[in-house]
Each structure stands twice: as C-alpha cells, then as structure tokens.
C-alpha cells in the first residue's frame, strides 16, 4: 500500500470530509428517517416499518413510480434518437473547425439556468402563447401543450438534448474510420453501416449519453411541474407533496430511497451493457 503523506492528505482530506458530511451522513440519515414516525404533525425517532408498508401499499405510489420510470426511459430513447443524426453530422461530416464551433454552440444553452429556460417555454406553449398564435394564423388549434406529458417531454429535451449531443459526439469521434471503410469495402451500404458498424463501435458513448439523460430526467422536478403541470405527479413532485401533507418527511424519505435505488440499478446495468464485449 502507498504511504499516506500529509502533503497528499491536505489535498484529499477536504473533499473526503465534504463527501462524508454532505453525502454519506445525509444518506445514512435519510435511511434512518424512513423508519421514524409522525405523531401530531411532529417527527419522532423510532424504528418502525410503517412508512415502508404504507407507501408500498398505495397504488398511487406504484402508478407514479411506473409513470416516472416510463417518462424518463421514453425521454432517454427519444433524446438519443433525436440527437443521433445531429451528433453523427458533427462527428463525421464537419471539418475540424466547424466541429469545434458546433461543440461550442452545444455548450451555450448551459449559460442560462434550466429554470429560466423552462419558464420561457411557457410563453411558447401556453394556450394563448406564441405557438398557438402561429397555429391560429393557419386556422388551426388552439392545442393544449402546457400541463401535458408533451410539455414534460419539452422540459426533458431542454434539459438533456445539448448534453446528449455532446456525449454522443465524443463517442462517435473515437470510432475507427477504417472500420467504416472496411464495412463499405465488404459491400455494406452507407445507412446499413451506421447501424451495423458505427453504432456498435460507439456503443459505450451512446449508452452513457442515454444514461445521463435517464438520470437527469428521472429526478427532474422543474420540467414536469412547470411544463407538465404536476398532475399526475412524478416521484420528485410526490416527494414535495408528501412533505407538505402532514409533515410526512419519513414517507418522503421512502420515496427518495426508492429513487436512489432505482438509479443505482439502472446505472449499473447500463454501464454493464455498454462495456459488454459483444453486441
């Protein structure tokens, strides 16, 4: 084992303390909290499984869980599919200078807070917003877009699309060009090569991109609430609702733990799939 030096510690210790104080300890506290009970709107330390049985016994919890899972999984697939042609173009068709410019443009959305971008979408999506005004000129609509799953998806796309494009571009840039030439040389046409060679070669990057999208959207609160309307809720909205309803922090902790566990399972299986040897 390497010797621990004061010099080394002085750099690593602050981060270690930070992680202990603000990650490991709260996580432990969260688990403990889920076994507390609420009496007369006050939390009392205890070791009681009642919160778990109550939450798991409710259909609304499972409906919300599946709905959140479906929305996040749907967003990951949708964003990955929408992003791919764009990433492919940036990685393979642009000159080195234009590629740098495109990557820079993908970073610009991060200059503005996600919350601000979501609020500005309301101006576009609301019943008397910009889109419906435009549709009205064409004699169509109005269409309800705000406070629907469509609105939630718009929020998710706003959150993830630039990041997924960036991650996909980096994955595609490392694809060995001679593999593409070799496929063409073996009579594999252009589109077929994308599916048979480019995507399998860039699999790690593409899966990690989709995984980031899943992680971000599964826990997102802003998009589903301000664009999706929050009814029916997602798990993160359900957490706030639960804390507001009768100081049920312990039950909110149960939801939070279920979310963390889900993300861990999804992340590990996605990474396992990405690095699996064969397609």
């Amino acid at each position, binding site marked *: 084992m390497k010797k621990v030096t004061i010099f080394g510690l002085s750099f690593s210790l602050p981060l270690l303390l930070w992680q202990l104080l603000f990650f490991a300890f709260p996580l432990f506290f969260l688990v403990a909290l889920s076994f507390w009970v609420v009496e007369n709107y006050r939390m009392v330390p205890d070791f009681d499984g009642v919160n778990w049985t109550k939450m798991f016994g409710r259909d609304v919890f499972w409906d919300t869980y599946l709905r959140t899972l479906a929305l996040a999984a749907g967003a990951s697939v949708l964003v990955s599919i929408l992003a791919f042609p764009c990433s492919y173009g940036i990685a393979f068709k642009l000159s080195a200078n234009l590629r740098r410019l495109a990557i820079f443009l993908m970073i610009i959305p991060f200059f503005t807070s996600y919350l601000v971008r979501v609020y500005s979408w309301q101006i576009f999506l609301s019943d008397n917003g910009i889109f419906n005004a435009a549709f009205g000129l064409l004699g169509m609509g109005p269409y309800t877009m705000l406070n629907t799953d469509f609105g939630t998806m718009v929020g998710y796309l706003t959150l993830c699309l630039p990041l997924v494009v960036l991650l996909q571009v980096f994955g595609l840039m490392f694809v060995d060009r*001679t*593999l593409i*030439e070799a496929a*063409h*040389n*073996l*009579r*594999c*046409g252009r589109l077929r090569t994308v599916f048979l060679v480019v995507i399998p070669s860039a699999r790690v990057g593409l899966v990690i991109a989709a995984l980031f999208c899943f992680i971000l959207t599964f826990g997102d609160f802003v998009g589903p609430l301000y664009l999706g309307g929050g009814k029916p809720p997602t798990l993160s909205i359900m957490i706030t609702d639960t804390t507001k309803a009768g100081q049920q922090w312990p039950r909110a902790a149960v939801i939070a733990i279920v979310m963390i566990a889900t993300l861990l399972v999804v992340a590990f299986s996605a990474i396992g799939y990405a690095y699996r040897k064969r397609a």
Partner: protein
Amino acid sequence: MAESLVVFDNVEKRFGDTIAVDRMNLDIRKGEFLVIMGSSGCGKTTTLRMLAGLDAPTQGEIRLDGRRINDLATWRRDTPMVWQSLALFPFLDVLQNVEFGLKMRGMDRARRRGKAMEWLDRMGIAEFARRDISQLSGGQRQRVALARSLVTEPEILLLDEPLSSLDAHLKVRMQAILSNLQKELGITFVYVTHSQSEAFAMGDRIVIMSRGRIEQIGAPVEIYRTPHNHFVAEFLGSSNIFQGRMAPMDGGLLPIETGQGRFYVNASGAGGKQEGASTTFVVGNDRMVLSEEQPADARNVLEGRVIGEEFVGATVTIHIETDDGQEIRAQKSHDEIAHLNTDVSTRIFVSWLPESAYVLPGE
C-alpha cells in the same frame, strides 16, 4: 501475355495542391501477384485505395474487366481489401467477422455460416470461431482478416501492408501462406508494401513508385539485376552506383570515365548512347571481388579502407570508403572473406568484371 484485369489509364490523384499519384498507367494482369513498393508518401496506398473505391481519381480512368469504375461506390464493387490495421470488427466474434461480407450479399444464415467455417478451417483457425477478436494473436487476426476478404470469392484481393505489425518470424510464415493462397486460388493479389523482402519473396511483378510516379515495373530478378534508373538502384540498395561519361570503344569493351577512374562495361550495355554522353552504371554488391593485393589482371579496380561491416544471416556486407570519399558495398559469404583482414581501417582492393556492370537505361 496474360489478360488485363485492371487498367490504370493516365490516372491522377490530387489532394489539394499535392499530387499523390501522377498520370499513372498500369496494367494489372489476371491471376498475378503484383507488389507495389515504395517509401511512405510515394502514392502506393493511394493507388490501392483508388482501386478499392475509397478514393476517387481526379483525372484519368480505372477499368476493371474493361468497365470504367471511377465513380462506382466502394460498396458496389468486389475489391476486398486487407488493411494494415486489419480493421476487424471488435464488436463481432471471429465467425461473425468472416461472414459479414456474405451477410451483406443477402446469403441465408445456414449457407453463410457453412462458407465462413470452411474458410476458417482452411486458414487453420476453425477452433477460434466463437472467440472475440481481442483474444487472438497477431497471426491469428491476420488469418481472420484474410478469410473475411476471401470468403466472397473475389477476383482480386487488395492488401495494404498487412504484415508490417508482425514479428520477423511470423512475417515469413505469413508470406508463405499468402503466396500459396494466391497460387491455389489463382486470383489477382495487389500487395502494397515498403519492405523489399516481402516484395521480392512474393511478387510475380513489382512496381516501384516514387513521388506519385512509377519508376519501374518488372519481375523481381529483373528489377534487382537491371534497375531502370538511379532512383531504383539506390532504393534497392543492392548495387554500387557509378556516374561518368562514355569514352570511345576499346577492344570490345566500353570505357566509362568517372570521378574514380576509368571503368569498363560490356559494349552491349551502351544502349545506343553516343560517345561523350553522361551515363550511370551499377554493379551488384554481391558481384564485387575483394582482395588484399592489387589484382593484376582486373580492368575495374578501386582501392579504399574498410569502414564497417554488417551481418545479414549467411552474408556479410563490407562497407569500403575510397580515397575520394565514395562508399562501396561488397556482399560476401563468410567463407569468401575468411582469409581476408576486414578490420576497420584496413586497406583493401575492390574489383569487378566488365560483365558485372549494368548501364542504367533510364539515365
């Protein structure tokens, strides 16, 4: 003469301002093992890539079986290539790699499996059919790459320095495998390399390229013994090169005045050149005779000092520097020089027969 399979008709390839291949005319015959040799950047790989359809000629025409193929997409022609990096698909196993080309042709699963296995068997790697590419050794990967390209039974196989990453021992074995395979299949191999030993070991004909042009085309012995010009002679490094002017004929021999003295070559080598014309001749390293005493009856003699020696297997190449600074190489077997003192700085005489000299026709 055998029929042409591929014709390069005045083909030129430019990348921006640089000319990679300059007005090339080349006939590739059916069933021959053609080696294109040259140093890096000479245009040999570009030539191969144009034939495979990976680069399009800027000018001129490439014909395959008499058909113009300039604008035919690479996935519409049957010109499989073996890459220097082999370009095996790492996300497919050995069998899937080999059957890839058959799958692209729409062959059904059972038939393509059978054919791929047949080829794996032929290459002696059937037992690795279900392995990952990363689990194979360099030589095994080479065989997978060959099987993948040959399984579709093409008329021509293109190889871009496929052996350059192998160690010397394996290289020789793969050379034999490639040579035999080409003879058995009777198809055309076009092989690009910078290595003389590979070219001379396998090629029926060798094309020597430099700066986008063909310097010489010929059988290995022809190129070795009768290089066309100064570049080829120097590139091969197997001959000593002398430059001078032709003098009047002298008793059936042609004297050439050089900076090192007057040397005689056979009159037949003059090639219609006039007296006084500048000329270059070469003498094979292995045709040089070494002696400690001045040879009495030799017509072509130089004196110099040994500056070094180089062992290549059974032969030794002795480097000698003449008093006016020209370097001469003499390649001898160990027995031939056993009685000589070849220590560095020893004075030594080099001589050769007039018939050992060859006047370069292209100079």
